C-alpha cells in the first residue's frame, strides 16, 4: 500500500502510523503501541482546516458552508475545492458531517425540512443555491450513488433509461437503447445482464445492483458523481469491482466519495478530506494524509485511535 512510506515528522521513537487492516477503525491493539509525536506546532484543537483545500482545476467550490438541522449545527464553516476529473474521498468518524456535506453538493438536503444550508457552493463558477437554479437541473449535472443499492422496482432497462427519459436526453427509442447499453457497459454490467434487460433490477445481486445504480447515474451523463459509502453493503469482491470502476470513471467525471474504509480512500482517491465533529480538519493529497498527517486528530483517526 502507498502509505507505508515513512515521513519526516516522526520523532525517533515513533512507529509509522499504520492503517488499520479492517473497516473498523476502532481496534484498540493498534493504538496501544503507538507513542504520540511531541510536536509543539502540531495543531491538536479543532479550528482552521489544515493542509490544502485548493486544487489545480477546481470545478465545484464550497466556501464557508454551514448546515443546521434545526438547532443542530451539523457542519461548520467548511471550504473545499473539488477538481475536474479527480476522485476526492471524504473520511471521518460516524456523525462527523461528511455525508451532510456530500448532500449539499446536489442539494439533496432540500428535501429535509429542518435542514438549512448557508455559505456558498459553486459549480463551474455558478452558485448552486441561487434562486433561479432548479435543483432538478443541478442533479442532472451532479449525480448520486447511495449507500444501499436502491434500484427502482422496474426492469433493468427501465432503471437505466429513467434518467434520460425524464430529462428528455434521447430523441427516439434507438438512441435510448444506445444510452442504456453504453451506460451498462461503462458500469461493467452489460456482459452480465444483456440477455435479461427485462428482468427486475431487484433480482440482481447486491454488487450488481450497485453497479446498476452507477449505470443509472452515468446514463444522465453528469459532470460530478457523489458516492455515499457505495461499498458498505457489498462483499470484498464486489467492492473491488466498484473501485476498479471508479478508476475508469474518473477519466470523465469528478467523483466525491464518502467512505469508512481507509484502504478504499487510499486506493481510489487522489485527495482526502478528513471531517471531525462537523469541521473539515484536514485536506491533502492522499499520500500525504496517510503518511504525514498534519493534524493530530487526522493521525488519531487513521491510526485507529478515534472512530
Amino acid at each position, binding site marked *: 500500500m502507498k502509505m507505508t512510506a515513512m515521513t519526516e515528522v516522526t520523532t525517533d521513537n515513533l512507529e509509522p502510523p499504520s492503517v488499520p487492516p479492517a473497516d473498523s477503525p476502532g481496534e484498540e491493539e493498534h493504538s496501544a503501541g503507538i507513542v504520540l509525536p511531541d510536536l509543539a506546532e502540531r495543531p491538536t484543537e479543532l479550528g482552521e482546516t489544515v493542509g490544502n483545500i485548493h486544487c489545480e482545476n477546481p470545478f465545484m467550490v464550497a466556501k464557508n458552508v454551514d448546515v443546521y438541522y434545526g438547532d443542530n449545527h451539523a457542519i461548520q464553516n467548511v471550504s473545499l475545492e473539488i477538481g475536474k476529473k479527480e476522485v476526492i474521498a471524504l473520511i471521518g468518524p460516524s456523525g462527523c458531517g461528511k455525508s451532510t456535506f456530500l448532500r449539499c453538493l*446536489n442539494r*439533496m438536503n432540500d*428535501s429535509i*425540512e429542518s435542514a438549512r444550508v448557508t455559505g456558498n457552493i459553486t459549480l463551474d463558477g455558478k452558485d448552486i443555491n441561487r434562486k433561479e437554479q432548479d435543483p*432538478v*437541473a*443541478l*442533479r*442532472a449535472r451532479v*449525480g*448520486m*450513488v*447511495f449507500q*444501499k443499492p*436502491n*434500484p*427502482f*422496482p*422496474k426492469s433493468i432497462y427501465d432503471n437505466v433509461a*429513467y*434518467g434520460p427519459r*425524464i*430529462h428528455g436526453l434521447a430523441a427516439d427509442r434507438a438512441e435510448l437503447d444506445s444510452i442504456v447499453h453504453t451506460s451498462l457497459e461503462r458500469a461493467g454490467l452489460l456482459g452480465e445482464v444483456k440477455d435479461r434487460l427485462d428482468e*427486475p433490477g431487484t433480482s440482481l445481486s447486491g454488487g450488481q445492483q450497485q453497479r446498476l*445504480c452507477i449505470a*443509472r*447515474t452515468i446514463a*444522465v451523463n453528469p459532470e460530478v458523481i457523489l458516492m455515499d459509502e457505495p461499498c458498505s453493503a457489498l462483499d470484498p469482491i464486489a467492492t473491488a469491482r466498484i473501485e476498479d470502476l471508479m478508476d475508469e470513471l474518473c477519466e470523465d467525471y469528478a467523483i466525491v466519495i464518502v467512505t469508512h474504509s481507509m484502504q478504499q480512500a487510499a486506493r481510489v482517491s487522489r485527495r482526502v478530506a478528513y471531517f471531525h465533529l462537523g469541521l473539515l480538519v484536514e485536506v491533502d493529497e492522499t499520500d500525504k494524509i496517510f503518511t504525514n498527517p498534519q493534524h493530530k486528530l487526522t493521525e488519531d483517526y487513521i491510526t485507529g485511535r478515534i472512530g
Partner: protein
Amino acid sequence: MKTAKTTLEKVEAGLPRRRRKEMAFRAIGVLATAVGVLFLGVFFATLIAEGSSAFRQTFMQIEVELREDVIAPGGELDLVYADFDGLVRTALREQFPDVSGRSDRRQLYRIVSAGAGYQLRDMVEADPDIIGSRQTVWVPAASNVDMLVKGNIDPDIDESLRPISDKQVAWVNTLRDAGKLERRFNKALFTNGDSREPELAGIRGAVMGSALMLVVTIVLSFPIGAAAAIYLEEFAPKSRWSDLIEVNINNLAAVPSIVFGLLGLAVFINWMALPRSAPLVGGLVLTLLTLPVIIIASRAAIQAVPPSIREAALGLGASETQVVFHHVLPLALPGMLTGTIIGMSRALGESAPLLMIGMVAFIVDVPGGFADPATALPVQIYLWADSPERAFAERTSAAIIVLLGFLLLMNLAAVIVRKRMERKW
C-alpha cells in the same frame, strides 16, 4: 459449604416454569380462537338455516279462463282497469265448487297471492292473443300458505293462535294432494322491489340502490382521498396546521356514522336541496364516511414506500411530482386500493346515516337513476326485520346472506387487486 450452582443448573431449574407458561399461553390462544370460530359458525349456521328457505317459494296451479267480457268489456283492452283479480277468484271458486258463503269465499281468495292478478295481466300484456282461452298457470301462494307448507306455521295449534284457518289448511292439503302445490325457485326475491306482501317482496330495488350509492361513493372518495393523502404525505409542510388536520382526520374515522347522516341531511338536503331518499345523497354521505378511512389507509401505504426509492429518483433529477407519480404512487397503489375497497365494504354495510336522509322509506319501484327514490340493502334488512309478517323473517335472513355475499366478493376483490399489483409492481 454449599456449592454454587452453575449457570446450566440455574437455567434448567427455571425451564419447567417457562414451559408451563408457554403451554398456558398457547391454551389461552387456542381457546380464544375457538370461541371466535364457534360464534362465527353459529352465526352462519343460523343465518343459512333461517334464510335458505326464502330462496324457494310455494306456487299453486290454477286454471284460469281469460274471459274477454271481464278483461276487455266492449272489446277494448284496458290493462289498468281490467279485473284480473276477479278471474283468479273465479278460478278458485271453480277449483273448490262446494265453498259457499261470503266469509268462506273470502277466506278461499286469501290462499292465493295478491300478485296472481298482476301475473295474469303481464301474461296478457305480453301476448294479447290468449284472451278468451283457458290457461293453466302457476301463481305464488299467499305467504301464510307458504309458511304453512314450509312448516313455519303449526296447523295443530289452536285456530285462533295462527294466521291461517282450519278451512284454509284443508284447502291447502287438498291442493297439495292433487299435486297443484309446488315449491319453486323464488325469482321474485331477486327481480322485484319491496312489497307489503312477503311473497312479492324482493331485494332488487335495494341492491340497485346500494349499487348506485357505491358508484357515487367510489367515484368521489377514491380520487379525493388519494389526492388528500398524497398532498398531506408528500407536499404539505409539517406545521401546526398539518398536525391539526391529521388529528381531525383520525377523529373523523371514529365519528359514529349517524352523525354523518345528520350532516348529510343538513347540508345536502336542507341546504343544497338535493332530492330526499336519493342514491346521490346516500353516496355523498357515504363518501364523507369513507374518506377518513381511505385517507388513513392511503397515507400508510405511501409511508410504506422505502425512502431509498424517493432518494434514488431525486438523485437522478426527478422533480417531486415525478417522484410521486413515477415511483411512490405505483408502489403505494395496491395498499391504497385495498384501503378503498375496505372503505367501500364498510359503506355497503352502513344503514344508520341512510335513515337520516330518508332512504328508509317504503319504495316499491326499482330505482333507475341517481335521483330516484331508493333504499339500500342494509336498510331493507332493517325494514323487513321490523315487519310483522312471519314470512319476512326468512326473507330478512336471505337478504343478509346476499349482503354478506357482496361483502365477501368485495373483500376478495381487495385481495386479488393486492396480489395482482404486487406481482406487477
